[in-house]
């Protein structure tokens, strides 16, 4: 089975801005792949390039084994896309939009459509202008999830959904995965990513900075150490892999990479330890570290 999404060295510029700067992204068949990054990192630009909506400047984009720019129509028959901000036609009902999008993709499953409307508690008779933000997203989600497609591309699809509906969404994504579909899920909600995704790619400034399974990513994080020593905290700052060292008398705080943990602890015991707290950082901190690096730079 071919790789549903294979992007390498993708570059896209808008005027002087380099929106994508050598991005690599591989999504394997049958997986739910999380796509994370701060606002403006290039997530939506990547997705538009995958959909053949944007002309790329350099790099290679393969979608379901084809070229999304040249074979757009044939490839789009095999995927469904939900944008981050679904806008509807004010004078079309939600049900009409769901059917229209489904038919334009080549048909949707009426039984699943009914089931989706039911579980998302969406009234399909309302006109587009009457829907709230969350309900507009639901229209897009129902249209995508009811389609018989191999690949779902979801760009922050749950913005505006309440926690109950977030649960419903996760249920349907799992079902899609069980049916053998591949999902690319761009998201800001870490709980959602942890709950759903097999692998994750983090992007920043138009580049992928980390890719892997969640447990692989956990290996990349730093452990934070807080200790009270019996002697002066000498020699800690020189160790490679120790970051953000703060010394306050005999109290020290620092973050340490997994590879340097052993050396750092040995140095601490050499000095003498009165108390020690070590904390594995959460996934949140991993993201924050990348996100903050972005803010410092800009």
């Amino acid at each position, binding site marked *: 089975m071919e790789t549903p999404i294979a992007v390498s060295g993708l570059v896209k510029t808008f005027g002087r801005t380099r929106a994508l700067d050598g991005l690599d992204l591989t999504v394997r068949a049958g997986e739910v792949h999380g796509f994370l990054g701060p606002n403006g990192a290039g997530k939506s630009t990547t997705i538009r390039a995958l959909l053949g*909506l944007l002309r790329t400047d350099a790099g290679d984009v393969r979608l379901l084994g084809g070229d999304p720019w040249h074979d*757009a*129509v044939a490839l*789009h028959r095999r*995927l469904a896309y*939900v944008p981050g901000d679904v*806008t509807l036609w004010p004078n079309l009902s939600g049900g009409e939009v769901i059917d*229209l999008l489904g*038919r334009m993709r080549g048909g949707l499953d009426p039984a699943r459509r009914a089931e989706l409307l039911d579980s998302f508690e969406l009234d399909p008779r309302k006109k587009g202008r009457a829907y709230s933000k969350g309900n507009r997203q639901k229209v897009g989600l129902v249209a995508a999830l009811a389609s018989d497609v191999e690949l779902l591309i979801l760009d922050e699809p749950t913005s505006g959904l309440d926690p109950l509906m977030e649960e419903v969404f996760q249920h349907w994504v799992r079902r899609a995965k069980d049916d053998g579909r591949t999902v690319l899920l761009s998201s800001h909600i870490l709980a959602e990513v942890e709950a759903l995704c097999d692998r994750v790619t983090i992007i920043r400034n138009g580049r992928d900075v980390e890719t892997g399974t969640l447990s692989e990513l956990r290996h990349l994080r730093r452990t934070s150490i807080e200790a009270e020593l019996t002697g002066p905290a000498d020699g800690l700052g020189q160790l490679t892999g120790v970051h953000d060292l703060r010394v306050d008398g005999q109290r020290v705080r620092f973050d340490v990479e997994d590879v340097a943990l052993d050396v750092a602890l040995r140095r601490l015991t050499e000095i003498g330890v009165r108390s020690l707290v070590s904390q594995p950082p959460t996934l949140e901190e991993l993201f924050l570290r990348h996100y903050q690096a972005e803010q410092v730079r800009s």
Partner: protein
Amino acid sequence: MTAFTGTRHLMRLILRRDRVVLPIWVLLLAVLPASYAGTYAGLYPTAAERAAYLDSTASNPSIVALLGPVFGDSVGALTVQRAGLLVLIAALVSVLTVVRHTRTEEEAGRRELLGATVLGRYAGLTAALLVTYAANVLLGLLIAGGLVAAGLPGAGSLLFGAGLALTGVAFATVGGLAAQLTEGAGGARGIGLGVLGLAFVLRLAGDAGGSGGTGGKAEWLSWLSPLGWAPRGRAFAGERPWVLLLPVLFAAVVALVAYPVSVRRDLGAGVLPPRLGPATAGPGLAGPFGLAWRLHRGQLLGWTVGFGLLGLVLGGAADAAGEAVQGNEQIAEIMARLGGTSALAEAYLGGTLSLTALAAAGYGIQAALRARAEETAGRAEPLLATAVSRTRWLAAHLLFALLGPVVVLAVAGLTTGLAYGLSVGDVGGELPRLLGAGLAQVPAAWVLAGLAALLVGWLPRFSSAAWAVLAGCLLLGQIGAVLKLSQWALDLSPFTHTPQVLGDNWTATPLAALTVIAAALLALALRTFHTRNIPTP
């Protein structure tokens, strides 16, 4: 806290948001009347020249139908007539401004954000109305000042400025009422503009019926129209200030309806209940063409009805136009030069049809630009992510840009032929003849629609420049001959090349050439659209 608490803050918010748009429209409309006055004073310095102009042109029924009645041959009276369309524009802008600051805000949910602060129940409507009223009053004063500066009498200048301002006030209030009725801003705009359209048709029918526009048998129709009141104040021609009580009374009555309605409904809701749509799509809504039909059909129907009515009015006035100027050699000559045939009614019909062609091109441009509007609203992207090619998606909208002008011009030709045929007793002959003449206008309209399409495909950021081109064609056609512009300048407008089908000597070659140009523009539009980024901001 009273029902008006917070009005002042909301007014400041509106002024802040409109700090560019509002001064622009006020200033644009303010300078035009004085410039008209200057032009008339320069072109026709003597009373005799102005009287001849009044006879030959100003009292021509098609001019009267379009601009309004003329009550004298003074520079002021002629200026008032010339500025007739400005009254319409002020009314139009007023409706749109009020709806934009009331219902559009509510629909977007921004009103709710403010409603949670200290805000009286009437504050939103009152602020939008007061700002628009103030803009109109300022506009009226500027116009009056400009006219006085141009050397016109003070009383007439003030009366004309007041007439225009109060018409704006009346329609601002109509906008305020319309905004209470529907849930969507589109519907509110539709109601407001519908009232304006009705007022225009009433005034047009009332004024066109009389020879010279004064005291025709249908004039009572003009008295029914809020657009008919400002000219009937007779600025510079025996002023009747009491007539201007009519727009004030009208605004008061409309406001008395709008305010109670505004508090009896919920925020975000309308008086007219939102209708639920079907839970599933009908069989026709299956692709880009089915969708385009849903998106364009309302507008197309509106334009078709409008063109039909226009055709009836203009066709019905044609025979009178011929009689009104019969026996006057000089006018006959002018008309012949303008229209291209010796028969006056024919010249009149030819002239009105070419104006209709410009309006039909306006429909074509509007339909082509709809594709761009869909793109910027984010509604193109999800569709283009389905198995629909860019070419099919754009072609669906362009189909309406092409078929629309055909439909509206055919209808205008038919109704003109019907009304004119009835008045001269030859429906069987006139109907097909004027249908043909209407359809002959289509290729020139296609060229402009094609240009708009090309802009959407190639230079989407500048796609609204198509409107500027239409305005340029209108100016070339209307004043090009008067200004004695050289032929190559006139030839820039595709409408210059439409042959006078009503005459005997014409060839289809220019029509074929225009069609080929339009086809090339469309092909280029699809080609360039195929290779650009979507969405292009």
